[in-house]
């Protein structure tokens, strides 16, 4: 009778250890790399876009969509 709790405890430990195998291990290398070079300017930090990120992103998205010729052909 006394052995039941012990068996249950052992089963619980085995269950917990077994479940731990299901966890996902981070495979990304943890490197302490810090860029050591000169600071770069942002693409929109210039006269054309006046440091307006939204304006630049809109322009880029618009330009990207022009690569889709179906937008032109489907209008016909």
């Amino acid at each position, binding site marked *: 009778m006394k052995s039941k709790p012990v068996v249950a405890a052992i089963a619980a430990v085995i269950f917990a250890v077994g479940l731990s195998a299901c966890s996902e291990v981070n495979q990304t290398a943890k490197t302490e790399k810090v860029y050591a070079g000169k600071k770069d300017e942002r693409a929109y930090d210039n006269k054309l876009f006046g440091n307006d990120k939204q304006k630049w992103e809109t322009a880029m*998205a618009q*330009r*990207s969509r022009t690569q889709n010729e179906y937008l032109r052909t489907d209008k016909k």
Partner: protein
Amino acid sequence: MARMKFICDAERCIECNGCVTACKSEHEVPWGVNRRRLVTVNDGKPGERSISVACMHCNDAPCMAVCPVDCFYKTEEGIVLHDKDLCIGCGYCFYACPFGAPQFPQAGAFGLRGKMDKCTFCAGGPEEDNSEAERTKYGRNRLAEGKLPACAEMCSTKALLAGDGDVIMSIYKQRVQRRGKGDEIWGWAMAYNRNDAKPQAAGAKT
């Protein structure tokens, strides 16, 4: 904005080398260096396919991880760039890169390597935008002009797409659906070529 990415549509690429030429011309890339090149599989055989390859601007770039002088950085848009003033031309990045993107110009006799050169997604480098220094070291900064990379804009069949990952992904998906393919071409089964993948849509090419 998502990350800036390239996609090459192997169904459309006709191996014209227009992207390679556009890149070399736009940035006046030195002799012996090809920031972009074409890879053809089954060359001359039925089913031949070509894709245009350059730096893929990896999310977790191995070149950045191995650089001993930490000359790589990533822009807000996910473009992997480097500082040529720091680069020592060791070649570690070349060995780490699965795409062979880093290139080394010959800087002297006996194969002496110069500083690494690679695709910048036409975003220049860590110099004043569109300055002479930036143009000389890294080439033209088209992104600062609101333009896409020259290779993609030059592509006559629009096989090579460049830009915001979400936008070019939607363009590519639309094309694939026009070819009669459906949702069965995405996901695990397609990637690992399982025979029990979902049946193809009617009229789909094989």
